[in-house]
């Protein structure tokens, strides 16, 4: 538990470093959070000295989504070699709200989006390199329905994409863009990185090094 708290505090501190380039208003609650957490962590330690660890270890809640099955796709698009599940936002949401030990890197892209296609190899590399380190890349395609069979499936084949590809087929974008992140204007590429403790959204492109550095903050 202490380890978890420390990791969490570290996460918040690292986060604060990232925030320094942004507006100062965000720092106050973050700093307040660090102070509060530091206090809590100390008091927690004091308690830990007095109480047997075993008495409250079982109280640590288990990941609460393990019992929930992935949602049924709206449609499954497939050709001879690849298959892509299409979801409305309500189905996709499952993949944006996992609470387990894995850090999820969710990239919103489309085959026709040049900067998206340029950064895809970075996401593929992350997915391959950190497979054993509980990091999972999900590529959410926003290709239009009529392009799925002619563009998206052949693209996955041709580029030999190994990360999981999902199709978000929900043209009422105003209904779901703010649910992915309230700061998202709707431009792609965009990326959501999250685990059970942290969540950050990026409406921008990444170089490989930038992406790897961002993800390293989530450990």
């Amino acid at each position, binding site marked *: 538990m202490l380890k978890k708290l420390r990791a*969490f505090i570290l996460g918040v501190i690292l986060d604060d470093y990232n925030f320094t380039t942004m507006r100062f208003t965000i720092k106050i609650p973050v700093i307040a*959070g660090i102070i509060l957490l530091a206090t809590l962590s100390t008091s927690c330690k004091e308690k830990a000295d007095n109480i047997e660890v075993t008495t409250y270890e079982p109280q640590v809640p288990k990941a609460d989504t393990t019992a929930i099955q992935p949602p049924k796709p709206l449609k499954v698009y497939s050709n001879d070699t690849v298959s892509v599940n299409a979801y409305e936002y309500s189905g996709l949401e499952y993949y944006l709200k996992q609470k387990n030990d894995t850090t999820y890197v969710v990239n919103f892209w489309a085959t026709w989006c040049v900067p998206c296609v340029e950064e895809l190899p970075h996401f593929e590399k992350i997915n391959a390199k950190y497979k054993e380190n509980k990091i999972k890349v999900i590529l959410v395609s926003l290709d239009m329905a009529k392009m799925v069979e002619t563009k998206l499936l052949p693209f996955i084949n041709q580029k030999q994409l190994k990360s999981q590809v999902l199709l978000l087929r929900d043209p009422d974008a105003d209904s779901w863009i703010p649910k992915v992140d309230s700061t*998202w204007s*709707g431009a792609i590429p965009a990326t959501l990185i999250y685990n059970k403790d942290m969540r950050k959204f990026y409406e921008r492109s990444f170089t490989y090094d930038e992406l790897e550095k961002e993800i390293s903050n989530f450990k």
Partner: protein
Amino acid sequence: MKTIKFLAMFVAIGALAAFKSVAPVGYKVGDIATDFSLKNVDGKNVSLKDFKSAKGYIVVFTCNHCPYAQAYEDRIIALDKKYKSQGYPVIAINPNNPEKQKDDSFAKMQERAKDKKFAFPYLLDEGQKIFPQYGATKTPHVYILQKTAKGNVVKYIGAIDDNYEDAAAVKQKYVENAVDALVKGKEVTVKETKAIGCSIKA
């Protein structure tokens, strides 16, 4: 222990909420929008103030290459046709840097405007100076302005409607509803929406 976890979560949520409340750059509804002088596909410069009899403007940041912009092209033409006579002409601006996006070059813009018989200005944001002031991030991205004594007031920011894929399946015509309200002298009800678009290449 649970309390500590709960508190930690609370602090985290607080930090997140504070982060999210940071205002984006660019115009908000109610702001006064800048005028500009940008080169039209006919070679002449166009400014908002040139439209003496206009009551306002439907400023659309759009371009040639983006499939979302293409999907909305006919709907943009229809908007101009419907609202120019009511005092709200369409002013289309290509915000992309042609050096980064060859399909959005001035020559290609001229081609597109001719092929599709654009009856509205299709301007190039040379040097990419105007779109950041508006705060446009993608194409298509609409700003509806109302001409007032104070200047051109932003009345709506966002999407054209709620279905980029299928014009026939549209349920909410955001831009039409907003302009209809303005023409009738009413308040715009849905002032801001979000839509998927191609990020602007400056």
